[in-house]
C-alpha cells in the first residue's frame, strides 16, 4: 500500500467524525457540570445556579471562563513536565473510549456509506478495557509530580482502587462476552437491535457489577476516595490551578459520559429504540433516530450517576477495598459460572 493508493476520502471522513465526536462530547460535558449542580440543588431542595442567563443556562460558560482566566501556578518543587502531562493524560484517556462506540446505523451522504463509528475493531471491548486501565496514569502522574504528600496519598489510593475494581469489571465483561460471542461493539449492538432482547435481560447481575465498577473507575461518590476532601484536603489535584484543574474536573465528567455510552451499548441496546422498526423509515432518518436514542440513554445513565452521588455517603477506605475484593470479585466469578452453566444447559 503506497501513499497514492491510500483511501484519502476515508481518512478525511474519519477525521471529521472524530472532531465532531470530541467537540460534542466536550459541549455535553460542559452542560453535565451544570446538570450536576441542578440535580444536587433539587435533591437538597434549593434552586441551584440561576443567575447567569435564563434559568442559569450560561453558568457553565461562566465557569469555564473563570477557570481559563485564573492564574496558572506550577509549584517550584514539582517536576514540571509530568505536572503538565498529568491533566492532559487524564483528558486524553477519557476521550479515547469514544473511538469504538457505535453511535448509530450507517449514514448515506454524497454517495458514500458513512459508518457512525470511528473504528470497528475486532477487539472492541478489550480496547475499552485497555483505555480504562490507562486512565489511572493521569491521576498517578499528576499526584506524584505535585510533590505534595496529600496528592501522593491520593494518587496511591486511586491506583489501588482502580486495580481492585478493574478485576471485577473484567470478570463481568467475560460473562457478557460468553453470551454475545463477539468482542466487536458494533456486532453486540446490532445483535440487540435485530430481534432478541437487550443484553441486560441475560446479564442482570453482570450489569449491576459492571455499573458499580464503572462508578468506582470514574472516581464518583461513594467511591471518590482519591479526592476525599475531609481526609486529603483536595486529593490529587490539590496543587493544580486554572485550566489544568479544569481538565481534571472535566475528565471526570467525560469519563462518566463515556462509561454511560459503553453501558448503554453493551447492556441496553445502544442506539436501538424499543418497539420501533428502523427499516420502515429512510436510512438517514433511522440513523438520526438512533443517535437521539443513544443520547437519551446516556443522559439517563448520567442522571443515575448524579442521583447516587447526592444520595449515598462516601465509603471508608477499608470498606471500599472489602467491597471490591470480598464482594464484587466473588460475585463476578459466580456470575461467570452461572452464565457458563446456563449456556451449557441450553446446548
Amino acid at each position, binding site marked *: 500500500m503506497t501513499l497514492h493508493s491510500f483511501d484519502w476520502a476515508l481518512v478525511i471522513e474519519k477525521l471529521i467524525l472524530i472532531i465532531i465526536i470530541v467537540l460534542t462530547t466536550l459541549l455535553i460535558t460542559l452542560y453535565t457540570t451544570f446538570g450536576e449542580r441542578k440535580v444536587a440543588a433539587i435533591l437538597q431542595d434549593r434552586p441551584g445556579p440561576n443567575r447567569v442567563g435564563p434559568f442559569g443556562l450560561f453558568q457553565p460558560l461562566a465557569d469555564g471562563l473563570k477557570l481559563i482566566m485564573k492564574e496558572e501556578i506550577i509549584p517550584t518543587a514539582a517536576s514540571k513536565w509530568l505536572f503538565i502531562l498529568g491533566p492532559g493524560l487524564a483528558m486524553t484517556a477519557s476521550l479515547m473510549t469514544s473511538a469504538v462506540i457505535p453511535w448509530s446505523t450507517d449514514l448515506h451522504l454524497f454517495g458514500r456509506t458513512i459508518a457512525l463509528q470511528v473504528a470497528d475493531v*475486532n477487539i472492541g471491548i478489550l480496547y475499552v478495557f*485497555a483505555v480504562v486501565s490507562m486512565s489511572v496514569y493521569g491521576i498517578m502522574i499528576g499526584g506524584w509530580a505535585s510533590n505534595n504528600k496529600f496528592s*501522593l496519598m491520593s*494518587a496511591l489510593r486511586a491506583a489501588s482502587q482502580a*486495580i481492585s475494581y478493574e478485576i471485577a469489571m473484567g470478570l463481568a465483561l467475560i460473562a457478557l462476552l460468553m453470551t454475545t460471542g463477539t468482542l466487536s461493539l458494533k456486532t453486540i449492538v446490532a445483535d440487540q437491535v435485530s430481534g432478541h432482547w437487550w443484553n441486560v435481560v441475560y446479564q442482570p447481575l453482570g450489569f449491576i457489577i459492571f455499573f458499580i465498577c464503572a462508578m468506582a473507575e470514574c472516581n464518583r461518590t461513594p467511591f471518590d476516595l482519591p479526592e476525599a476532601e475531609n481526609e486529603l484536603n483536595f486529593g490529587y489535584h490539590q496543587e493544580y490551578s486554572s485550566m489544568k484543574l479544569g481538565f481534571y474536573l472535566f475528565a471526570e465528567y467525560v469519563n462518566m459520559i463515556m462509561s454511560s455510552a459503553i453501558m448503554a451499548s453493551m447492556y441496553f441496546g445502544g442506539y436501538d429504540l424499543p418497539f420501533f422498526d428502523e427499516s420502515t423509515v429512510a436510512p438517514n432518518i433511522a440513523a438520526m433516530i438512533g443517535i437521539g436514542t443513544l443520547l437519551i440513554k446516556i443522559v439517563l445513565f448520567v442522571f443515575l450517576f448524579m442521583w447516587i452521588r447526592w444520595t449515598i455517603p462516601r465509603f471508608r477506605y477499608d470498606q471500599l477495598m472489602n467491597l471490591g475484593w470480598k464482594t464484587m470479585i466473588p460475585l463476578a466469578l459466580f456470575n461467570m459460572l452461572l452464565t457458563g452453566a446456563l449456556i451449557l444447559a441450553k446446548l
Partner: protein
Amino acid sequence: MSILQILFFALSAFAIVSAIMVLISKNPIHSVLWLILVFFAISGHYILLNAQFLAIVNIIVYAGAIMVLFLFVIMLINIKKDSEPQKQFLVKLLGVLAGGSFLTLLVALIKQTAQIEGRQLLMKDGVIGLIHPLGKVLFTDYVIPFEISSVLFLSAMVGAVIIGKK
C-alpha cells in the same frame, strides 16, 4: 516507501529511543514512564502484524496493570534522585556480561530461524493474531501447556497470599 514501512520504522525508532531513555533516566519514576512508552511501541508493531488481540493484551496487562504496580511501589518507597545506591564495579560488570550473552543468544536465534530468513516484512496480513483463531488454537492444540501455565499462576497467587499473611 509504503505507509506500512514508514510506520514500521517510526515505531521501531520510538521503541529504541524509549528503551534507551529507560536505562539512562536518573529518576526511577521517569524510567517506568518511558517503559510504558516502549510497551505502546511494541503494541503498535503487533497491530502492524494484525495481531490485535496480542497488542491490546500487551497494553492491558503490561502497560495497564504491571506498570501501575511498579509505579505504585516506587512511589511508596519514595526513592530520591540522589539517595539511589551506587552499584559496585563487579556487579555492573556481571550485569553487562549477563545482558551481553542474552543479546548474543537472541541474535543467534533470529539468524537461525528459517521462517523469517530472507523474508520481507509481513504486515497487516494473516488472521492468526485475531481472537477467534487464537482461541481455537489455545483450546485445542495447546490446551495442556495453557492449563499448566494457569495452574502455575494460581500457585504463584497462593504463594503471594501466604507471604502477605506472614
